[in-house]
């Protein structure tokens, strides 16, 4: 059993059986993480570099923890403390690191397609940890794992993806994954934050009415408003966004059904999610973070064995 691809560049390239294999393997790693000693020697002869050309808290810590729990040797690289600030190109930086016998690269970059570019030039396995507004495959995998854990299966589930769809790599990876695994997807948000032709391209439903989407769904995956990627005003104010598209306790209670609330973090509290919703009993946000380590262990383990 192995993955059909030597890298994890995006969910787009995965077959449904690859996704199944990753999620099933992650289940066994989650059991490892419940043990008194949460470490296995699987990757003890593998060296992994975490190349983060863009800021991150959860993803970087989650990857690093996953690598260490697999007994891999870990190198951390952040642009601010490197020769990239002296003008070295990404490819030169990576080739220099790889010449020191590094087996795998975990890459986060603000440019969409950066890991795909790298894959054309190096032979080591690459894991995309988020590239611009394109994909964030491990986030979609851990979201899928969390949905399965909470509801039993993805097949036939109704998932609403709410908020800034336009700038979100999490949304794109989630749409690819959920539709491949037989779930139904509706995206909801202001018209300025939803790209055109989504229905034609991916077969997802689009609505600009939040309540309608919540009434329809089993699970709502609420995305962060990515102010850092917006160079022009796309809605009038955060307060107005909160009134129209923020999820409040009152709104959830008015649905008269139970839905599950997810968020990939970091949360803008009081913008897309009110605090009492983020902390409420419907929320599985912290379980998502916990599952992230197990899912990343599965991805690294399966790619190292190629």
């Amino acid at each position: 059993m192995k993955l059909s691809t030597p890298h994890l560049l995006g969910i787009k390239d995965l077959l449904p059986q690859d996704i199944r294999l990753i999620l099933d393997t992650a289940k066994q790693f989650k059991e490892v993480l419940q043990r008194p000693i949460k470490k296995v020697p699987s990757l003890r002869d593998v060296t992994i570099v975490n190349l983060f050309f863009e800021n991150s808290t959860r993803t970087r810590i989650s990857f690093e923890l996953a690598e260490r729990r697999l007994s891999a040797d870990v190198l951390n690289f952040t642009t601010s403390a490197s020769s990239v600030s002296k003008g070295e190109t990404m490819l030169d930086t990576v080739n220099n690191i790889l010449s020191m016998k590094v087996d795998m690269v975990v890459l986060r970059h603000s440019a969409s397609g950066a890991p795909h570019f790298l894959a054309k030039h190096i032979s080591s396995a690459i894991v995309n940890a988020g590239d611009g507004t394109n994909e964030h495959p491990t986030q979609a995998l851990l979201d899928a794992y969390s949905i399965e854990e909470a509801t039993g299966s993805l097949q036939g589930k109704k998932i609403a993806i709410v908020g800034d769809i336009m700038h979100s790599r999490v949304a794109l990876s989630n749409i690819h994954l959920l539709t491949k695994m037989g779930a139904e997807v509706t995206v909801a948000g202001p018209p300025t934050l939803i790209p055109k032709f989504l229905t034609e391209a991916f077969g997802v439903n689009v609505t600009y009415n939040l309540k309608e989407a919540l009434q329809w769904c089993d699970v709502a995956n609420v995305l962060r408003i990515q102010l850092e990627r917006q160079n022009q005003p796309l809605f009038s104010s955060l307060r107005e966004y909160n009134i129209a598209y923020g999820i409040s306790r009152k709104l959830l209670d008015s649905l008269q059904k139970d839905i599950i609330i997810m968020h990939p973090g970091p949360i803008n509290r009081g913008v897309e999610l009110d605090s009492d919703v983020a902390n409420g009993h419907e929320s599985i946000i912290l379980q998502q973070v916990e599952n992230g380590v197990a899912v990343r262990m599965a991805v690294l383990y399966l790619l190292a064995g190629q």
Partner: protein
Amino acid sequence: MKTILTEQQISLTIQRLAHQIIEHHLDLKETVIIGLQPRGIYVSDKIVEELTKNLPGRTILYGKVDITFYRDDIRRELHVPNKTEINFSIENKNVILVDDVLYTGRTIRAALDALLGFGRPAKVELCVLIDRRFSRQLPIQPDYTGKVIDALITQKVKVQWKEKGEITGVIITE
């Protein structure tokens, strides 16, 4: 294809192994049984069943361990993991590892590694249904043996179970 043990012989052998375990550990108070995934658990299930019959009223601590993440050949072949289920501490316990066929000894080496994640056992013993002697690659020997056989490296020894949709028995194929 040659049959080495029939269903009836396996059943008798398992009864004997269970009795030998009781002979050494009496009431099994400080002893736990750990079956090896994926195929050893068919043997351990039956041994635990037999032990329960012989020690009425006693709950036997029984777990299952998967060694996939502890293998030494991940670069050669990727294996799909099975479930590990050890819901108790093995600290200071006598652990009896159970597998179907002992061959090179590498699986048991990995299992010993895996056990350390659940505590420091007082003692670890090994119980196997079939011991393929003269084919070991590591210094590992069983404490309880169902049947010792000599088979060539080119031959395959397989324990089949009707629970898996096969005809129960131990067979050798070329």
